[in-house]
């Protein structure tokens, strides 16, 4: 994925950019910057939710781990994209139908892996914020998307949860997938991370 002078403006006001970076297969991109610097907006541009207002973005999706019918992009945003009135299991089943999922990882296995064994049938409303985040991570773990976009993936998690995120990211990179995440700068990231710092909003 190559971004050249990428930027986004809303009603004439620049939200971020221009930024330039290259993200290769197996690479990790960390997007840093102060609050309001446009980190989330950049992620949304990378996800294809927003069209860039300047510069170019070229994404080449390798076929690594990718099967026809499954989504190319996996997004874990500020909001988990889960329904609080449904159980963890129902939420994951729905996401599987929507995005496709790794067959070897069953729903219950993925939930056990993120430490939610025994909570499969409870409505998410009854779980804590950190536990809901873990359900979103279980969905991510089952994803076969080439590009992972994670908005502050370490927020709201305990030490064990944070190391879980690191493990998931490492596994995705090992498969040859790409990961882009936003960070406040306090998170521990591998040494080979590509950094991209956004300036303060003007």
């Amino acid at each position: 994925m190559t971004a050249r002078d990428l930027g986004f403006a809303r009603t004439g006001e620049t939200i971020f950019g221009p930024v330039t970076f290259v993200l290769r297969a197996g690479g990790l991109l960390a997007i840093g910057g102060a609050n309001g610097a446009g980190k989330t907006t950049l992620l949304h541009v990378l996800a294809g939710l927003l069209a860039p207002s300047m510069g170019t973005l070229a994404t080449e999706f390798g076929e690594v781990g990718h099967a026809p019918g499954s989504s190319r992009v996996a997004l874990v945003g500020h909001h988990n994209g889960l329904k609080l009135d449904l159980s963890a299991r129902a939420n994951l089943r729905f996401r599987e139908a929507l995005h496709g999922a790794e067959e070897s990882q069953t729903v219950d296995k993925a939930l056990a892996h993120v430490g939610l064994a025994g909570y499969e049938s409870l409505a998410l409303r009854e779980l804590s914020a950190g536990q809901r985040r873990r359900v979103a991570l279980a969905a991510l773990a089952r994803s076969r998307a080439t590009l992972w976009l994670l908005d502050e993936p370490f927020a709201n998690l305990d030490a064990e949860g944070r190391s879980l995120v690191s493990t998931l990211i490492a596994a995705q990179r090992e498969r040859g997938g790409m990961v882009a995440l936003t960070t406040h700068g306090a998170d521990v990231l591998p040494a080979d991370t590509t950094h991209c710092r956004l300036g303060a909003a003007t």
Partner: protein
Amino acid sequence: MTGTPVGAAAALFRRDLQLAVRRPDDALQPLLFAVIVAALFPFALGADATRLAPIAGGVAWVVALLSLLIGLDAVYRGDEEDGSLDQLLVSGQPLALLCAARMLAHWLVVGLPLVLVAPVLARLLGMPPNAWPVAIASLSLGTGVLVAIGHVCAALAVAAKRSVILVPLLVLPLAVPVLIFGAGAVQATLSGLSPTVPLLMLAAGLALAIPLAPLACAAALRLNAG
């Protein structure tokens, strides 16, 4: 398992029905509103059938239209607020198909019950029984068109801060033709005329809405993404 377009749409349809079962209040509120309003008319105008019967068709249709507006603004706002909408958008599945699945689920949850209680509304409003089948037929077709229009407007207003006010304002002008033909079909029957033409107009509206509304809905959601 891979996420096929039809499988994804079916899963979304199932999800919306499951959510309606988990939150029955949201589904029952429009129905309760319709029955209460229809029950109040005889008290306000007197139970004299000669006064109520001539306006029964129009009143039943206004009641149905207004009750469908309840909660309409939240159709896509809920998905927007919890991030589900972003998941639908990045999935790469045909968004129009997903929108169509949501419309069908919404009609089953809100529209169909309204059609089923139509005889109750008709009885409360003193509508002569010979007009009941036409009232039910016009409501079946009309509620479908109204749900389709409503979803497009809700999708357009999903990012708006005051969508509670905005959505009804967007829907009402588009809903007026549906109201005219729907109430017109019942009135025609009551005056001894054939309701065929207004019913056919409603059917034409539905035939137009079924392919076009999901496309418009998908375009509106993409416009508001991010």
